[in-house]
């Protein structure tokens, strides 16, 4: 754990740290807060770390903090005194709150090579990957719905996640709100009898689906790619909804007042190069944010291609969130 604690550590602890930090005293440490699954052995973390350390002359260290929402909560708890130089793994639903903390600096990185399905303009946050939310199901499912209303009329059983504790859950809330606006509550009421249960996180929902508890689960259009590529199982696919699919765009930002601002900026620029981007598809199982479709691994071409990609701006999402949640809760609590 050499040099884990950076300059910002108060004096009391520095005595303890000094000895451990000596060896790497000359090597700057770039600390990146991210969500847990990014840093796991099978996530993008290890490959990204190795590739960046090859050129940066630095020690890149990831700190994992639950999911995207816990990541932001941790940053808010730490405030100005945070050890993070970069925060990686917030999504568009969290950006407004993250911006409000005033902890993020302008990145100043050229983002003209982005390959997102929507235009991106944000001075503080840069996307690194994205995906379409979708209902995943088995290929032998009959009468696959093509809209929320068709789904509500069918007797298909679905598992979804709770928007209060899960990012996909919140994404679904926004999806329904985007497509149906003021009629969202009625749509949720109609969906109520299709919803087998609501789980606290993605893992539980996906687990229930694999267990055969439901016909469909809220996940991503890229989920079948995992089964196809990693498990050679082509029996999972995602349902294409005519009105379009809501997007999740995952972003990173650099922390204001970081001791290694230049290094942090270098990392954000590196994040949009193929060395980082080509790791994403088969580790994070999302679409890379700056890589042409032709460079995607084999198997990704089999995925459904939703049109159009739907997304609220961070400010719209923040403004609509509480109202949408209340509608959801009212409709499903009856």
């Amino acid at each position, binding site marked *: *754990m050499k040099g884990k604690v950076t300059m910002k550590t108060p004096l009391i602890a520095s005595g303890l740290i000094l000895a451990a930090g000596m060896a790497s005293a000359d090597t700057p440490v770039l600390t990146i807060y991210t969500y847990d699954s990014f840093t796991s052995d099978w996530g993008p973390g290890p490959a990204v770390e190795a590739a960046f350390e090859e050129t940066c002359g630095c020690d890149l260290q990831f700190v994992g903090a639950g999911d995207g929402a816990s990541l932001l909560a941790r940053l808010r708890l730490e405030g100005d005194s945070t050890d993070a130089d970069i925060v990686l793994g917030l999504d568009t639903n969290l950006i407004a709150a993250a911006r409000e903390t005033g902890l993020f600096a302008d990145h100043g990185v050229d983002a003209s090579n982005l390959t997102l399905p929507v235009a991106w303009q944000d001075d503080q946050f840069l996307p690194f990957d994205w995906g379409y939310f979708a209902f995943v199901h088995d290929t032998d499912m009959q009468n696959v719905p093509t809209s929320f209303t068709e789904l509500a009329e069918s007797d298909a059983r679905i598992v979804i996640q709770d928007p209060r504790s899960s990012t996909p859950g919140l994404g679904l809330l926004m999806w329904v709100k985007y497509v149906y606006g003021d009629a969202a509550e009625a749509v949720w009421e109609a969906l109520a009898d299709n919803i087998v249960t609501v789980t606290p996180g993605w893992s539980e929902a996906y*687990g229930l689906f694999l267990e055969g508890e439901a016909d469909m689960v809220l996940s991503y259009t890229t989920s079948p790619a995992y089964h196809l590529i990693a498990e050679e199982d082509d029996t999972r696919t995602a349902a294409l909804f005519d009105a379009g699919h809501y997007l999740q765009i995952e972003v990173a930002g650099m922390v204001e007042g970081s001791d290694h601002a230049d290094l942090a900026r270098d990392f954000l620029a590196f994040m949009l190069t193929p060395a980082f981007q080509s790791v994403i598809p088969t580790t994070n199982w999302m679409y890379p944010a700056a890589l042409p479709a032709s460079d995607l691994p084999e198997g990704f071409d089999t995925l459904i291609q939703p049109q159009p990609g739907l997304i609220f701006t961070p400010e719209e999402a923040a403004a609509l969130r509480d109202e949408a949640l209340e509608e959801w809760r009212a409709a499903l609590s009856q």
Partner: protein
Amino acid sequence: MARSAQPVGISAWAGAAVAALVLTVIAVPLGAVMLRADASSGLGPADWAAVRFTVGQAFLSALFSVGLAIPVARALARRNFRGRSALIALMGAPFILPVIVAVLGLLTVFGRQGALSEILRLFGLPGVEIYGLHGVVLAHVFFNLPLAVRLILQGWLAIPVERFRLAATLGFSSRDIARHMERPMLRNVLPGAFLVIFLICTTSFAVALTLGGGPRATTVELAIYQAFLFDFDLGRAALLGLVQVAICVIAGVFVLWVATPNAIGTGLDQQVERWDGQSRAARLLDGAFITAAALFLLLPLTAVVLRGAGAIATMPPSIWVAALRSIALSLVTASVAVGMALPMAMLIARGRARGLLETIGALSIAVSPLVIGTGLFLILRPIAGPTDMALPVTGLVNALAALPFVLRALVPAVEQAEAGYGRLALSLGLSGPNYLRHVLLPRLRRPLGFGAGLAAALSMGDLGVITLFAAPQQGTLPLEMYRLMGSYRTDDAQGAALLLLVLSLAIFWIFDRGGRVNAAV
């Protein structure tokens, strides 16, 4: 009761110090979260609905767990058969399984494509629907029935064999035995067991929501997650933490009001042998209860084992490292938990401020690990990096979380030893370390082994506060398992779950066995 049979000694001060420590570790973080809070919206109607649901489902879950445990424990106490101790050990496994693993195991029996539904369909009946309040209660009974059985069984085994001999000589029927010996024991043991299980169920979160079927099944713990992660309203999170404290205190007061002190007296510490209940009907009934409980608890576990078996050889190496870390952590947890519980149990057994102490002991399972973890994070962060603190903090918090269980196992045994031998020891001038060594500890072996095993096993399976502190390279086994699940790696996660199950059981078995070596000193 041997009130004040022993002079107040070092152990009493140690007991009071432990109680003070428990209070500090809960109150200070709660206060820290509150201090850090900006404007708070306070508690709304949705929060109160969550409180009602939480208390209601916890009450039902505890009621069914304890109620069903009585006949099972009685059957296990009366019958001696091959594999009995292995069965008792195995039946304890659900209690220490990570929630999601246990739920998926349950679904193989009670799910839409589970065994039960398949059987019903054979007879043209509709399958079972597990989602709803009944599903929540079913899962909580699955988790907690084993604990209830063990706690009640401890009570049964604590009835001196001389009593049963006397009863046999007097020609007592099973009914007479129930009336004169078993019921007083149950009145002593049941309220405490009920309280512990009720409180565990009040902090349920993933089980309640996943099996509850929707936002109706929102518990206080989920409301805390929402306040913390969704609204970042620390004031409301802390308030809800206080609500949990209030639930614990009210339940504690109520339970202690119902409970009666142990009045069984003591014997010569010999193995229990039963002369009653030898009729055919009684044997069949006992056999039926044991079989039903074993099927209910072991079928889902079998599913966990079968699925994990295929993956265990191919798991990523980080899992094995995490397993070693978890073992080390659980050993530390067990010794700290027992070290804290013993003086506290001695103090409680002396009858001083009993209600207060038991309630304090129970607080650590009633209050949200998220709130405590956040508070500790706020307090410790200025002093040292969170990752440096991850394992010590987790060890301490796990030990505190295990404290109520260890206390439940120890208190009745200490009471009995003191009631039976306290005066004798006093008249012989045995006190302090000598009293502990020659009188108390030999009589506490069984509950000490059980308590240490439980603490160690609980710590193995607990996710607790580590998530807030751990660096990516510091994950414990359950944390690694969740990380695998979160990245589609269901097979590896099932392997990790099996490893967790095996390790937890092994560590529990070793401690529990150790406690029963030369049980009849």
